[in-house]
Every structure is written in C-alpha cells, then in structure tokens.
C-alpha cells in the first residue's frame, strides 16, 4: 500500500548467521524489553517461538557444521497479516515495524493462518487472549533506541539500521566472502521483502526456512479478487433483476392469455 512512500524511512535488522555464537543474549534482551515471562530455571532454552518468546535462537546442524539461526517476525514490507486482519489491528509502520493492537483484535487468528513464516502466536490459556509476536521494539525506536536484540548482541550478528544500508552491507559481505556465505539475502525479496534480512553460510532451505517463496507480496493475491466485489454486486443484481423481470413477464402474458380465453368462453356461454 504505502510501501514505496516509506522505503527510505524503513529500518531493519541484518542477522548474520556466520557471526552468531548461540549465546541467546538477544532472547534475554527481548524478554526484558518486552516484559515477557522469564523461563523457569532448569527449563531447556526455548527453540520455538511462543507467546513469551518473540525470538528464538535455534542450533541447526548442516553437513556436520553447526549453524545458529534466529527466528522472529520478518516485518514484511507488504505483510500478509496486515492485509488479513478484518479490523486493522495489525499495521505496518513507516519505520518498518509491523505493530499489533490487542484492544482492536477479536481473535479470529486469520493473521496466524496468513503469515507465510508462521510467526504469530496466541495466548491459548488466557481468557482474553491476544496475538503475540516481535514488535521490532517500536516503542524503543520511537525513543531513538535500537531494538533490544540488536543492542544485546555481543558479536554484531544482529545489527540494526536503515534497511537500504543493511542491504548494502549484506551484499558487500557476500561479495567479499563468497566462501563464507551462500549468495542469498533471505528477506530481501521473499514475499516482496521485509525489514529483517538474513545471510547464512548454508542454504536457507536446509535451515528450515520456507524454500522457493514467491517474490510477490501476498496481499495482491486477495486484492485481485476483492477489488471485483463492487462489479460482482452490480452485475449480479442487474442480472437477477433482469432474469426475474423476463420470467415474470412471460408468466403474466401466459396468465393474461388464459384470462382472455376465459372471458371469451364466458361470453360464448352467455350467447
């Protein structure tokens, strides 16, 4: 919708899997900044996104090589969830963050179905549940701070900045070290691109990311149909009205003819 207007203002994160050491400082920073429930001591670290885990670090082994990946909301440029929400509880902000207003939400969970990355989570055990996901720490962005995960990362594996700058950095790293990286910036083009960019030493499909995603924004798929609603309403009404009129007129004519015949017969009988 306003993708192009805000292209310059969009911020984002560049996540470089080659630099991630799996320390989970980002997860901790995230929990603190977003007031998420702390895991009970002794629990194994979360490996799945959850209502209280907006991001997770997941170790993956590919060809004997250990790679740490991060999962979080991709903050798409033209998000499926934003287009899906019937009440507009989800919005794409000019700074790139996809934000969510739990007061508007009535809980249809269509955003969860629509998200191509299956990111949004729900509070299944709550009596007034809301959708939960990474916010790109937009309250922090408003205060001029960077997202908590980027601030917490000790190795620079997660880096905050304007999306365009991050894209240049990512391209530069891949160009300089083709031996270290696969030539793919995940999030640059997937479903139209987003604010979160990832680069990796191995193929993204091998790390469990969706393979061969379309490069077109998903909302266009729905809009191609939705935009026809007015013409369907007009055409349908005219067609049905016309059909009724034609059929009804034909029946009336038949009845008129019948009436005329009855009158004739009656006259004939009088004579």
């Amino acid at each position: 919708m306003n993708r192009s207007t805000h292209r310059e203002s969009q911020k984002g994160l560049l996540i470089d899997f080659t630099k991630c050491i799996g320390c989970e400082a980002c997860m901790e920073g995230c929990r603190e900044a977003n007031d998420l429930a702390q895991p009970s001591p002794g629990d194994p670290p979360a490996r799945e996104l959850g209502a209280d885990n907006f991001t997770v670090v997941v170790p993956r082994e590919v060809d004997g090589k250990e790679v740490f990946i991060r999962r979080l909301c991709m903050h798409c440029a033209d998000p499926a969830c934003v287009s899906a929400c019937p009440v507009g509880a989800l919005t794409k902000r000019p700074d790139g963050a996809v934000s969510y207003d739990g007061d508007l939400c009535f809980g249809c969970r269509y955003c969860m179905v629509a998200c191509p990355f299956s990111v949004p989570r729900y509070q299944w055990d709550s009596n007034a549940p809301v959708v939960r996901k990474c916010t790109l720490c937009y309250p922090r962005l408003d205060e001029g701070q960077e997202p908590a995960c980027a601030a917490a990362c000790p190795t620079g594996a997660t880096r905050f900045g304007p999306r365009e700058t991050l894209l240049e950095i990512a391209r530069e790293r891949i160009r300089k070290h083709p031996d270290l990286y696969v030539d793919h910036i995940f999030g640059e083009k997937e479903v139209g691109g987003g604010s979160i960019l990832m680069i990796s030493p191995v193929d993204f499909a091998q790390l469990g990311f969706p393979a061969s995603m379309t490069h077109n924004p998903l909302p266009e798929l729905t809009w191609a149909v939705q935009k026809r609603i007015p013409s369907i309403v007009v055409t349908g009404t005219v067609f049905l009205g016309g059909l009724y009129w034609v059929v009804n007129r034909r029946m009336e004519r038949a009845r008129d003819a019948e009436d005329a015949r009855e009158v004739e017969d009656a006259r004939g009988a009088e004579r």
Partner: protein
Amino acid sequence: MPSIAGMDVRKLITPGRIAIGIIILGGVIITLRRFAFGLGATTNLSDQVPWGLWISFDVISGVALAAGGFTMALLVHIAGDHTYRGLVRPAILTAFLGYLLVIVGLLFDIGKPWNIWHAIIYWNHHSAMFEVAWCVMLYTTVLLLEFLPMVLERFGLHAPMRIIRAIQIPLFITGIVLSTLHQSSLGSLFLLTPGKLHPLWYTRYLPLLFFFSAVTVGFAMVMLESFLSSKFLRRGLELRLLARLGRYLAFADIFYLILRIQDLTRRGVWGEAFTGSTESIFFLAEMALFTVPLFILFSSRLRRQRTPLFLASLMIVIGLVLNRLNISLVGMLRSTGGSYLPNWQEIWLSVFLVLCAALVFGLAARFLPVFSAEGPRDAGAGAKRSTDGASQAAPA
C-alpha cells in the same frame, strides 16, 4: 397435512430423548468450560494449528451447507420454476438456522467474542475476513426477513406481512448476491496461503470453486433435509420432485468437478494425488464423494429410487465437508509442522450445535407453516403481486 403429533406423557422418556439430554448437558458444560478457561482448555488448537474443527466444520462448512437457502430462492422466485415452491421455506429455515449456528460457532471459536462488533466500525476492506464478517451479518439479516413470513403468517399479522411481501423479490436478490460473495469469500480466505496450503487445494480459483461447490451442496442439502424430515418429522416424501431436483444437483456437481479437474490439470499437480500421502488419501476421498453420486444422479432409474437418491445427496454433503476440512486443516498441517486431532469437547460441541439446530428445525416445522402454507393461499398472493406488477409495468 401436518398432523400435530399427540404428546403422550408415557412416551416422553425415550432412549432418543435421553441421548439428546446427555448431549445438551455436555454442551452446556463445555460452554461453561470454554468461557471460563479459554480455548486451550477446550480445544487441541496450537500455534501451528490455529484453526480447528470449530472453524472448519461449524463455520466454513456450515456456511456452505446453508447454501440451499439461496439456490432454492433463485430457482423458484427468480428463475420462476414454481415446481419446487414447497422446498423453498424449509431451505430458508435451514439456511437461517445454519447461519445462526455459524455465528454461535464463531462466538465459541474467536478469542475475544465481546469484541466481535469491531468488524462493524474498524474497517479493513483488503481483508477477506472483513468481507466474510459483513456477509455473515448482512445475509443473516436477510435470512431473518425471509424467514419472518412463516412467523407472521402463523400469528396472522397481516400488516408487517404485506411489507415483507412488497420487498420480497429485492430481498431474494440481495440474499443471492450476498451468498455469492459470502460463499466465494470463504475461498478467498486461503488465497493468502500459497506456500502453506498443499498444492492439491491451493489455487487462485479457490473463490470460484467454493462458490460452485456451495451451489452443488445447496441442492444436496435440500434433498437430504427432505429425506430427514420425512423420517423424523413423519412427513410425506415427494420422491418425484426430489428426483427432478436431482437433475439440477447432477449438473451443478458435474460443472464443479469439471472446474476442479481442469484446475488440477492446468497446474499439473495430479502426481500429488497418487503418492499415498495423507493429503492424497484425503483428496481422493473427497473427489470420490463428489464423483460417485453422478452415477446415481445421471441414471434415470436410480435417481427415482429413495435409497440411492438419499445416498447421493448424503455423499455430496460429506464430500463438501471433507473438502472444507481438507483446505482449512489437512492441507495446512505439513507446512506448519503441526499435528491436530479435535478433542472430545470440540467434537461434542459441534454435535451439540447441530443438534440444537435440528431441534429448532423440528419445533419450527411443528408450529410454523414451514411445509404446508405454500399452497393456494400463497399462489393467490403471488397472483396479486403479479397484477400489481402489471399495473406498474403498463401505464402506457
């Protein structure tokens, strides 16, 4: 015709009634549990499977199963085939109750039902769910107005009756247009999921397929409900009329299947149908349930027999439900890595809601002119209406 069944007190307690009582009691308990403890305590839903039986069956299938209301209105009141006059009111009653069931099912399933009115004031016209919400609201209102004459007639309220009669045709047309939008919009919901929904079901023609499968099942439901009310409400069965309606069902079904097969061929995904995967088995079952009835419906001998005709309509109804379950549940599981089987409370509540609808249908059939009144009285009203129309149409 409707012999009012005598209420024999000694026969009040029957095994059937006890079963009904148990189902209702369970339904009440699950209702309390749902609103006291939330969805987690009453369903097997998860972050990987956010839509389960309640959405797939009660809501998405429920809307399609209510399609008889608009197909019969179209056939009789717009296209003027008055042979089927007597089937319109039961179909409208079924549709009305079906939509009420959908709404109640929705209130159970959505996380914050007290916020449902937000759809009225916070608009996002890009959302297919927004269209769904508005279609539910508007068409339920239209169905109420289409149903109301049965109540007004029963209590002899002639003044409001005249008003509804006056707007009857615009009302039917509005209902048909809204149904077209609503049935197809449920398919539009899944247009956003190209990477998630299995290729046997994902196509950009989903809205079209949802619409034509709904038209098909609309006829099947009208027939099925005739069979069921002849059995349970001890009504006569107009088998010849249903056999004739079976031809419409046959043509709707074959048209839908041609669309479906053509789409699968165009996308080149037939290979997926025979891999033996869970998806392929569910797909083949669904296709079989839509195909086998054709052999009955296109046989002029079988179509005129009670049991085959009953089975044909039943198969199409089950096939439709399976299709909707496949799209909203089965076809989604692989990509999200989730697993799901409804728990007993989800199943029980669905049975409970269907039972409630059936009981209300039975009550309405007993106390309202659902089956009987479309006789000479109505024909007279129709003639009156048409003379009015004639005087307006011919001032010259």
